[in-house]
């Protein structure tokens, strides 16, 4: 049993702490110019964080208890391939979902 005091303590401190993490650079640096070498690193933030964030979810899906899953792996490859060739985010999402459900349906009937 979690005590009421613990729950509210965690909610408030985690909320404030998370806000401060998010506000850090936007808040402190604001409109000041950043040096070129910093900007050069920041240009790669999205491709540096997001692929690492999802890679474990693709290789060790939670839904299968962490066991690699063929349908999910193929769907991930299809999503990246279509997104890369067409440059269409929506097209890549649709392709990924179609492949995921397609392979899962094949697996269910096989």
């Amino acid at each position: 049993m979690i005590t009421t005091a613990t729950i509210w303590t965690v909610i408030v401190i985690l909320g404030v702490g998370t806000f401060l993490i998010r506000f850090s650079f936007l808040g402190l640096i604001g409109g000041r110019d950043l040096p070129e070498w910093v900007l050069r690193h920041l240009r790669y933030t999205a491709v540096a964080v997001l692929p690492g964030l999802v890679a474990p979810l693709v290789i060790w899906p939670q839904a299968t208890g962490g066991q690699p899953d063929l349908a999910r792996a193929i769907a991930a490859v299809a999503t990246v391939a279509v997104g890369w060739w067409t440059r269409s985010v929506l097209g890549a999402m649709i392709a990924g979902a179609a492949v995921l459900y397609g392979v899962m349906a094949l697996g269910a009937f096989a």
Partner: protein
Amino acid sequence: MTQTTTKSAYMTGLRDGLPFLLVIAPFSLLFGVVATEAGLNILQSLMFSVVVIAGASQFTALQLMVDQTPTFIVLATALAVNLRMAMYSASLTPWLGAAPVWQRALISYFLVDATYACAITRFEKEPQWTVNQRFFYFLGAVTPVCPVWYVLTVVGALIGTAMPTWLALDFAVPICFLAMIAPMLRTIPHLAAALVSVTLSLVLAFVPFSLGLLIAALAAMMTGAQAELWMKQRATA
């Protein structure tokens, strides 16, 4: 700044954020369910989602509290999960740093994986946008994502059932983010950074407190920056 351009920026954000409904819906429902099972009442579940508004860290904190972990460890671990958001904050600073402080505070509160991915993609595509247009774009991307997070947390807490597993909605997360990432891989430095990110995050998956991802991300940013320098030097040589 005319009314129509801020409005169209907002609408563009709304459209870009819409697919992430599929990511947010199952996770917020599930959070409501898990929070109720852990003994939280509806107000506590809702406030958890409103005050913290960071899915992965909410699940982490809840699980640790259920395991009777000391509060200090709960907080340290859940905050470590959110440290990547400092990188998002830094990455958006060149685009939104000139906005008034209340706007930057609002953006910070709503800075989640989905809204960040939308914003950075669109800002790079529309470099001519004003800071005000970027702000309204961001609010547009927030609209289909964050309110849904609050509402479905309550729905999950009330009905006590998550999405059926055969829908495989767990995989909406990788598909949505991979679809955003793939078109970003337009240069060799971007490709190199993404490869380092994937490889190191898998190799460092054992590192506690989600710090493996942070190390992987820093190494990937350095890879991208260094590769860009090399390519420039080769082009001028």
